[in-house]
């Protein structure tokens, strides 16, 4: 659409200072470069963390946290011998991820059909409106506590809680995507007898893709958080259990370490998997920033 022209010509007054500085001397150019901005914020974060660790009696510093994670990796799991797979870090993480993945599969199998049907037929939408609204309002951690009381240790409590707390959010996203399907095209493809498989391929998936991915992202985060939460409140293995274990013996490095590990999993999945899928799906849109708007403004 010829927008790249506007990006190279920052004369229009209201454009950012970053582009205006490109003509200045190399030091200024370095200071306002995108990469400098990103790295300065990252370094600032570590510095603040270090300061918080130095000032607070409980809060661990980055070095302590990292060395704890290394220690955890060097501890054999249970009574077995140490190996790359059989240590406290990898095994507990693997158990939690396994639970979260199974929960996520169930969430998708329930959430996507209901969300689509709600957008398609108004009766179904009216039927589920209140149920979904209540489901969204329910906090995951009450489900977690109830799940622990009902199912006890093991596999069922985390999966159950993750399913009940992640599904409503996915349903709402899918519903919004489903409402975005152009009615005229859908009616027309119905009138001309287009097979449902083709409709899915050429009409439904393209118009729902954005909402679906947003919903999956929400569901993954919710399922993972919920699994860890349940493990914290009552389980005998998994990432949440491990964090609780260290908390109970007053080892705050361990608590922070597992917090960081849990966070790393979320970010790795989000950046490494979901975002890649998102980019692949939306290739055709061209230059789009992470904010969901085109980078260049209409100048």
């Amino acid at each position, binding site marked *: 659409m010829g927008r790249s022209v506007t990006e190279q010509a920052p004369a*229009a*007054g*209201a454009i*950012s*200072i*970053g582009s205006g500085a490109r003509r200045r001397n190399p030091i200024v150019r370095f200071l*306002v470069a995108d990469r400098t*901005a*990103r790295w*300065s*914020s*990252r370094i600032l*974060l570590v510095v603040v963390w270090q300061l918080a660790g130095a000032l*607070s009696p*409980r*809060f661990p510093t980055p070095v302590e946290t990292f060395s704890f994670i290394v220690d955890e990796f060097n501890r054999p799991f249970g009574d077995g011998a140490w190996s790359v797979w059989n240590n406290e870090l990898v095994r507990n993480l693997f158990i939690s991820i396994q639970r979260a993945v199974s929960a996520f599969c169930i969430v998708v199998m329930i959430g996507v059909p209901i969300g689509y049907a709600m957008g398609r037929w*108004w*009766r179904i*939408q*009216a*039927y*589920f*409106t*209140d*149920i979904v*609204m*209540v489901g969204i*309002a*329910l*906090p*995951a*951690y*009450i489900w977690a*506590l*109830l799940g622990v*009381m*009902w199912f006890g240790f093991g596999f*069922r409590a985390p999966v159950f809680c993750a399913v009940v707390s992640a599904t409503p959010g996915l349903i709402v996203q899918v519903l*919004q995507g489903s*409402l975005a399907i152009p*009615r005229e095209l859908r009616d027309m493809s119905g009138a001309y007898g287009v097979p449902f498989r083709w409709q899915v391929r050429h009409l439904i998936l393209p118009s729902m893709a954005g909402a679906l991915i947003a919903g999956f992202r929400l569901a993954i*985060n919710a399922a*993972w*958080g919920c699994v*860890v*939460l349940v493990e914290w*409140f009552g389980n005998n293995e998994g990432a949440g259990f491990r*964090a609780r274990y260290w*908390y109970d013996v007053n080892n705050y490095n361990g*608590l*922070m370490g597992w*917090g960081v590990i*849990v*966070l790393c999993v979320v*970010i790795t999945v*989000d950046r490494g998997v979901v975002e890649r899928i998102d980019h692949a799906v939306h290739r055709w849109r061209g230059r789009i920033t992470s*904010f969901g*708007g085109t980078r260049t*403004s*209409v100048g």
Partner: protein
Amino acid sequence: MASETGTQERDASSRGTMAVDVARRTTSTRRKAAVYSLLGAVTVLVVWQLVSGFQRTAFDLLPGPAQVADRMWGFIVGDPSRGVASGTVFINFWETLRKTLIGFAAAVVFGVPIGILMGRYRYAKNFFFDLVYLAANVPLIVYAILGLLLFGLGDAGPAFVVALLVLPVISLNVAAGVEGVDRNLLTMSRAYGRPSRAALRDIVAPSFSPFLFAAARASFAASWKLAALAETFGGTTGIGVQIRKAFQGFSVADMMAWMMFFVIFVVLIERVALMRLERWVFRYRLKRGEDVLRY
């Protein structure tokens, strides 16, 4: 589109019932939708009643709706036999709400300027992007742990983590709003020598305030949940503490009573208070027949 109000029933019914503008829907369709909605609620209650009757399964410990309603009533008017003072609900909800609101206010105070900067300057966008991204993806339990570690027991932890949770949502939404500002208007206001404060108030603020409301509505439920969770971990007052007590006493009925209160409260605040406020702030847009409210 808006001028056809109430004439085309089919159109009204097929457009999203919750994507809203209720006025557009005819009364009969609204009534029909309400019937279906009621049917859904009744189904849930019936299933609940049935499941709570199952013996020797995991749901042996599931109390029926009647018992939970009884406990809820006890928390409202007091239940001397179990040592519950009257008005327990209101006291505890107010405690939690207070912390949530403090956190929310802090998030708005810091989040709006950050959002404006992010929408306006490329440097700020790059600088804050990772921080905001990180804060937006932290699981609630990690926040709760963080609050516990930094502040120990007390009120400060929940309020602080609520602020951390809400801030990225607000900044990202405000940034999106600012990016959508009509640049021509800004250029014009500069050309006519208007001070930049006026431009901020009259051009930038109206374009991001709908986004701000969307952010507030989207994050209210989550922030409320986080406040309660943080209280469960390290609080001294509030519903989180009540829920912890119920868990430690292994009282499923009490916990489900609190759970129901939770829902009622969130729905009340979201549907009644925030929606009213939003309609009031955007009344000029409602007059033009635009949809303001989202699900």
